[in-house]
């Protein structure tokens, strides 16, 4: 009940003219950027981050929340209409969304299904977040340096281990992210460290240019390969709002999988490292166990509803560990966390008690963003479809310019542009060679927290490792960490044994 009162206070803050307008602006921009093929929510949020500079911290955070949320909606547009997922969670949406748009010639209905399912999943996720966030924060208060160290190691390892096809590469970039973050000032003593004689590096590597380069500019370099691709025929067909609507029977078909996936997705989102992509995969896999009116994979409404609802619910659910424990669930979450920290918000167990205005305004803004994004998305389907016809060859110089001005504006010097350029080149090379850069961003954001907790733990224990297994919470987390690390090794060994057996036969 107290949570509802606090949420109401959050709504009072959010419902100022400026905040509502900012939420709408964030929703529109997030949708537009998210809908552009090949950009995705990670690059989208990174590119739009500098736009929040103008506002006061609360408004800026509200805008960030709306940007993040609407990007999730937008990612499905190019998946459904072009078979190019805007971000990784939309990969599953394309399986049924694209056939529904092309083979069944119902692109508008596919988009409607996706939007309504996203709304349903998101609503379930935010409702659960409202009640679970503070509870998780209370649990978080029991976390000392040893528990936090174990938890952060679990989060970093699981992202490094789960994202991408090769766990080794994930761990490599996790460590690289930590080392880059250790440049500048020492977290405990404040003494300069790894500045290599450069006055710029004394302040460390700036977050925004780093993230814009790693995902945004690297994406530009990748887009060059796709610039000659022709746009799909279906997006040249004229779509109207009325002609895109779904029938009552179709609404009844989409609601059960959307509600089911909403709960499942939220649960997945809460787990550190799992994120919206895992949520979408699990949502779709679960739907296979249930009855669908049309076979999945042929343009079934149930297929689109299951994964879209799950990925938006996971996006909302991931706010619980992000706010209560300071652990983002994905690369996009890490960028968002960086943005929140930039605005003085220190996610962690004390956030709900020390900065309730920030916290509940953000949760309230998610409710508002969910509703606003739904209406905007439904209302501007015909216009958004036109966005997809923007040729990639025009997007390349446009995004390059945004990368330059965005990174310049965050540091007010060309140092930001240089950081963006270097991180972009490495981001491109890493992605090209099968290294996912999401773990690097996550570890870059979490490294100071991990370092300070780890060092405090060792100072308290006088250098003994026993400290990490003395408390039950830390012990459970250490076991979980060992399981995460050993699972791919065991799986890989089993695969080798199986292959050997097959070769013998």
């Amino acid at each position: 009940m107290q949570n509802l009162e606090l949420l109401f206070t959050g709504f009072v803050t959010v419902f100022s003219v400026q905040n509502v307008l900012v939420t709408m602006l964030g929703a529109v921009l997030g949708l537009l950027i998210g809908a552009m093929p090949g950009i995705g929510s990670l690059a989208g949020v990174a590119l739009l981050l500098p736009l929040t500079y103008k506002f006061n911290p609360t408004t800026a955070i509200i805008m960030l929340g709306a940007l993040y949320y609407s990007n999730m909606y937008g990612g499905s547009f190019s998946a459904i209409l072009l078979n190019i997922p805007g971000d990784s969670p939309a990969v599953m949406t394309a399986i049924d969304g694209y056939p529904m748009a092309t083979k069944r010639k119902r692109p508008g209905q596919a988009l409607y299904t996706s939007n309504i399912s996203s709304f349903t999943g998101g609503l379930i996720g935010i409702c659960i977040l409202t009640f679970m966030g503070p509870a998780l924060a209370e649990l978080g208060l029991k976390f000392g340096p040893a528990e936090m160290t174990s938890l952060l190691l679990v989060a970093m390892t699981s992202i490094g281990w789960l994202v991408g096809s090769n766990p080794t590469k994930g761990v490599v970039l996790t460590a690289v992210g930590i080392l880059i973050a250790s440049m500048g000032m020492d977290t405990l003593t404040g003494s300069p460290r790894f500045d290599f004689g450069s006055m710029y590096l004394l302040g460390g590597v700036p977050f925004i240019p780093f993230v814009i380069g790693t995902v945004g500019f690297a994406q530009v370099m990748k887009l060059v390969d796709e610039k000659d691709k022709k746009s799909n025929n279906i997006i040249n067909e004229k779509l109207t709002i009325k002609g895109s609507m779904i029938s009552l029977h179709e609404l009844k078909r989409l609601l059960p999988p959307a509600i089911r996936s909403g709960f499942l997705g939220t649960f997945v989102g809460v787990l550190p490292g799992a994120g919206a992509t895992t949520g979408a995969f699990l949502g779709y896999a679960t739907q296979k166990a249930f009855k669908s009116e049309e076979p999945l994979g042929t343009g079934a409404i149930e297929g689109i509803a299951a994964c879209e609802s799950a990925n938006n619910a996971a996006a909302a659910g991931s706010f619980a560990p992000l706010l209560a424990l300071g652990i983002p669930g994905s690369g996009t979450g890490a960028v968002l966390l960086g943005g929140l920290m930039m605005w003085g918000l220190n996610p962690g167990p004390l956030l709900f008690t020390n900065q309730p205005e920030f916290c509940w305004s953000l949760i309230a803004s998610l409710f508002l963003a969910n509703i606003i994004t739904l209406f905007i998305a439904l209302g501007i389907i015909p216009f958004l479809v036109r966005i997809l016809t923007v040729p990639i060859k025009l997007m390349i110089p446009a995004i390059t310019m945004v990368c330059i001005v965005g990174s310049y504006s965050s540091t007010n010097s060309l140092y930001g542009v240089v950081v963006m350029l270097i991180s972009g080149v490495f981001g491109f090379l890493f992605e090209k060679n099968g290294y996912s850069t999401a773990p690097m961003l996550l570890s870059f954001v979490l490294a100071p927290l991990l370092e300070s907790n780890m060092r405090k733990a060792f100072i308290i224990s006088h250098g003994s490792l026993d400290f990490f297994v003395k408390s039950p919470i830390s012990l459970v987390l250490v076991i979980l960490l060992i399981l995460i690390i050993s699972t791919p090794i065991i799986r890989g060994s089993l695969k080798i044994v199986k292959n050997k057996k097959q070769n013998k036969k």
Partner: protein
Amino acid sequence: MFKEKIGTKTILPLGTTILGIIFSVIGFFKYGFWDENIGTLPGFFPTIIGLLLTGISILALFQSINDEKNSSRKENWYPVLAVILIIIGNFIFGMYISLFAFLIYWVRFYEKCSWKETIVIFTIMFVIVVGAFGAWLNINFPKGLIYNLLF
């Protein structure tokens, strides 16, 4: 034979191995690892992570031998060249002129789009760069040597 196996797939883990060594060596010897009275020193954490990176990078290096070669086209590097030229141009002509000269060159002359398309994209980017960043966010972009000499 060996030459064919070397590419970014090998250079990247090699680079991260060197990075790990540099951070662990500097961390340990320059910033210190452990002090009996104080406890952990500034080099404690980077040394551990540097060693971890070195070990795991060596593993990645061996794994990379079996990876397929990933070559990038020279066109992939044009945006990099463009940013470098914009940085240089920024000192002489200022940020706005460098950015919009790049935009016009890329759209009209490199991609050979029509003047109509060029003007449309120019207008949109003008609103974003000059309107949103310059006027709204008050970002003071460099005006360049020529502007400073003239005004």
